[in-house]
C-alpha cells in the first residue's frame, strides 16, 4: 500500500541527512523509490538518480535531500561542542533548540551567557550533557553532524489535508512530492530522471554534477519557496500558503526558461491544478546550476510554499503539496519537443 504524503514527510524528516552527510536519507529514498524505478544509481557527490525510462526527451526532476545542519568544529575542555553551520542557519532562529547526532546523541544549542543582542553561531555551543572533554569525545568527534530534534505535526486533525509543522520540509517535502509523482507517472513517453541531490543547502553543489551526468533536455527543480504572508514580513516573495503549487519564474539563481514556465501553466490549466507564480528575490535552488550546465538546459521550478524556512518548525500546506504532485505528474506526461 502506498504511503500518504504526510506519512512520507514524517518518514523523510526523521532521517539524518545534513549537507555532506546524506547517506541515511539516500538509502531511505532509494528504498522508497525502488518499486517505481527502472534503474537507481548514485554518483561521486552522492546524488541519487532514479530513472524511469522512456523514448522521448530527457526530463530531469531535482529535489534536494540534504537538510541544513550543524557540524562539530571543536570540543572544549568542559565537554561543550563548538559548531559550524551547514547551510543557512540563523542563530536567533535556533537558540535552545534540541539537536540530534547521527548516532543518537542528543543535546541543546545554547548561546554563551555573555552574548548580547546579536548572536553569532561562534558564540554558541551544543551541550550534550558530557562531564568533560574526554567523555564528550567518546560520544562525538570533530566533523560529526547534528540536526534539529523536533517533531512533525499535522495542524488539522479533522481534515484530510491540513497544514504540517515540521523541521526540514526544506527539502524533504520536495522529495516526498517527487516520490509521489514517480509513483503516479505510469504510461509515459518522456525519459524521466528523478534526482535527489546533495549539498544544495551549502550552495547547490550536488545538482551541478548530476546535471552534467544526465545532460537533460528539460529540467524542473522542486523545492520549497519562502512565503512571507505573515505579520511584519519583508515581502521578498510572491507566494502565499494554501494558494496552490508555485510555478517558478525566477529566484536569485535562475530566470526560468519561458517555454518551461508556459508548459507548466498549460499543464495547470488543462488539469485544473491550483497554481501561483513564484518570484523570489532572495535564495537560490538547484535550478541555478542545472540551467547553465554544459550548453544550457531549459529549466523551470515547482515550488512548495513554506513558512519559516530553515527554522526548527517550518509550515507547509498539504493541499499545496498535492497540487505540486499533480503538476509534476502532468509535466512528466506532457508532450515535449526533443532538443
Amino acid at each position, binding site marked *: 500500500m502506498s504511503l500518504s504524503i504526510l506519512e512520507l514527510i514524517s518518514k523523510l524528516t526523521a532521517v539524518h541527512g545534513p*549537507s*555532506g*552527510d546524506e547517506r541515511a536519507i539516500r538509502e531511505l529514498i532509494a528504498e522508497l523509490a525502488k518499486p517505481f524505478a527502472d534503474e537507481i544509481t548514485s*554518483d*561521486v*557527490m552522492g546524488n541519487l538518480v532514479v530513472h524511469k525510462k522512456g523514448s522521448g526527451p530527457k526530463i530531469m526532476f531535482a529535489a534536494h535531500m540534504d537538510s541544513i545542519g550543524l*557540524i562539530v*568544529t*571543536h570540543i*572544549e*575542555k568542559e565537554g561543550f561542542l*563548538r559548531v*559550524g*553551520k*551547514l547551510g543557512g542557519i540563523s542563530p536567533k532562529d535556533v537558540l535552545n533548540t534540541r539537536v540530534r547526532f547521527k548516532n543518537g546523541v542528543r543535546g541543546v544549542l545554547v548561546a554563551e551567557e555573555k552574548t548580547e543582542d546579536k548572536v553569532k553561531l*561562534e558564540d554558541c555551543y551544543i551541550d550534550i550533557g558530557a562531564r568533560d572533554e574526554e567523555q564528550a569525545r567518546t560520544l562525538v568527534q*570533530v*566533523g560529526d553532524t547534528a540536526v534539529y530534534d523536533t517533531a512533525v505535526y499535522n495542524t488539522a486533525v479533522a481534515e484530510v489535508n491540513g497544514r504540517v509543522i515540521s523541521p526540514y520540509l526544506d527539502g524533504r517535502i520536495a522529495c516526498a512530492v517527487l516520490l509521489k509523482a514517480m509513483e503516479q507517472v505510469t504510461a509515459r513517453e518522456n525519459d524521466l530522471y528523478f534526482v535527489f541531490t546533495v*549539498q544544495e543547502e*551549502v*550552495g547547490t*553543489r550536488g545538482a*551541478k*554534477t548530476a546535471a*552534467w*551526468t544526465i545532460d537533460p533536455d528539460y529540467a524542473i527543480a522542486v523545492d520549497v519557496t519562502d512565503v512571507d504572508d505573515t505579520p511584519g514580513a519583508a515581502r521578498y516573495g510572491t507566494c502565499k500558503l494554501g494558494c496552490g503549487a508555485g510555478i517558478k519564474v525566477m529566484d536569485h539563481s535562475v530566470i526560468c526558461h519561458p517555454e518551461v514556465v508556459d508548459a507548466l501553466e498549460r499543464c495547470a490549466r488543462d488539469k485544473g491544478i491550483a497554481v501561483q507564480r513564484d518570484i523570489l528575490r532572495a535564495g537560490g535552488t538547484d535550478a541555478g546550476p542545472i540551467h547553465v550546465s554544459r550548453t544550457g538546459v531549459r529549466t523551470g521550478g515547482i515550488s512548495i510554499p513554506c513558512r519559516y524556512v530553515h527554522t526548527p518548525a517550518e509550515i507547509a500546506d498539504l493541499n499545496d503539496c498535492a497540487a505540486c504532485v499533480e503538476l509534476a505528474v502532468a509535466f512528466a506526461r506532457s508532450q515535449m519537443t526533443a532538443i
Partner: protein
Amino acid sequence: MLELLKQLCLLNGVSGDEGEVRAFLRAQAEPYADSIRTDALGNLIVFKQGAKATGNRLLLAAHMDEVGLIITHVTDEGFLKFGFVGGVDRRIAIGKPVVLGSDRVPGIISLKAIHLTDKAELKKVPKTDSLYIDIGAGSREEALKKVPLGTYGSFVSQPEEFGDGFFKARAIDDRIGCAIMLELLKEELPLDVTFAFTAQEEVGTRGAFGAAFSVTPQVALVLETTTAADLPGVDSHRRVCAPGKGPVISYMDGSTIYDRGLFEDLRRLAEDNGIPWQTKEYIAGGNDARTIQRTKQGVRVAAMSAATRYLHAPSSVASVADFKNMQELTRLFLLDQARQAN
C-alpha cells in the same frame, strides 16, 4: 628541500601573472615529466607515469599564484594608485616595501609621517583608495615609463628559518604545495599522477576549473596552506589549527565538504605511520578543491594543508616539520591510492 621552498617563495607570481613561477616549475619538472603543458588559463599540467598505469585517475594540485597588487592609476606627481589582487588586509600593507613588474622596480606603500598625523586620523585605517606607492618618480611620465598601468606588484620579504623549527616567507601560500609536488615528481611513483600547478586560485579558484576539466580525474588531493590562529587572545574554538601539530586534514571548509572516505584514509595513514595530524577546528576559507570537486560528473576531493600564521601577509609563518610530514603523508597517500586502484 627547504632550499627549494625558499627559492619558490622568492619568485613573484600574483594571480594572472604567474609566468615567473611557471617557468621555474617547468624547468624543474621537465626532466622528470612524461608530458608537460601549459593551458589557456596558465595552469602548468605535468603528467608522470608510475609503477601502476592508472592514467588520469589521480590529480595532485597546488596553486602557483599568490596575492599581491596591481597598478591602476598614476597621479600627476608620479605616485602610483593600486588595487589588491586577492585578499590582502590593507592594515598590513601600509608602510611595506614592494617591487613592481618583472624589472622589480622598488616602491613603498606610503603614508605621511606621524608628525603630520592628528589623533582622529590615527584611529582610522586609511581606505585602499587613498593609499599610493612611491617609486621616487619625478613625474607621471617618468613613472609610467618604468611602471605601465596593469603592472603587478609583490611585497618584499626574505625567506628564513627562525625560532624553534619555524620558517617565515612571503607566498608560503601556496609555494609549499608546489615544493611538495616538485619533490614528488623527482621520485619513482607507485601510480600515474597528474600534477596541476594552478593559476588564479587567489581570485576565486579560477585556474583549477580548466585543469580539472581537461584532466577529468576521479580523485584529487589539494596541497595547500590554511589559516592558523594560535595567537595571543584567541579563544580555543577560534584557533582553527596550529603550525607544528602536523598536516591539517580537512573534513570541511568555507567552500567544500570533503570526501569523507578520503578524509578517513588520510587520517588512518597518518595514525598508522606515526605522523602527527590535525584538522581544522573552525569553518573558514576555501581552495581549489571546491572547483575540482564539481567538475563534470564530480571528483572525490581531499585537502592537506600546512597550518600557517599570517596568511596573505608579507611574512607568513609555518613549521618545517609540518612541511616534511606533508610530503611523507602525500607519499603514503599515493601508495594507498595505488593499492585502491584496480
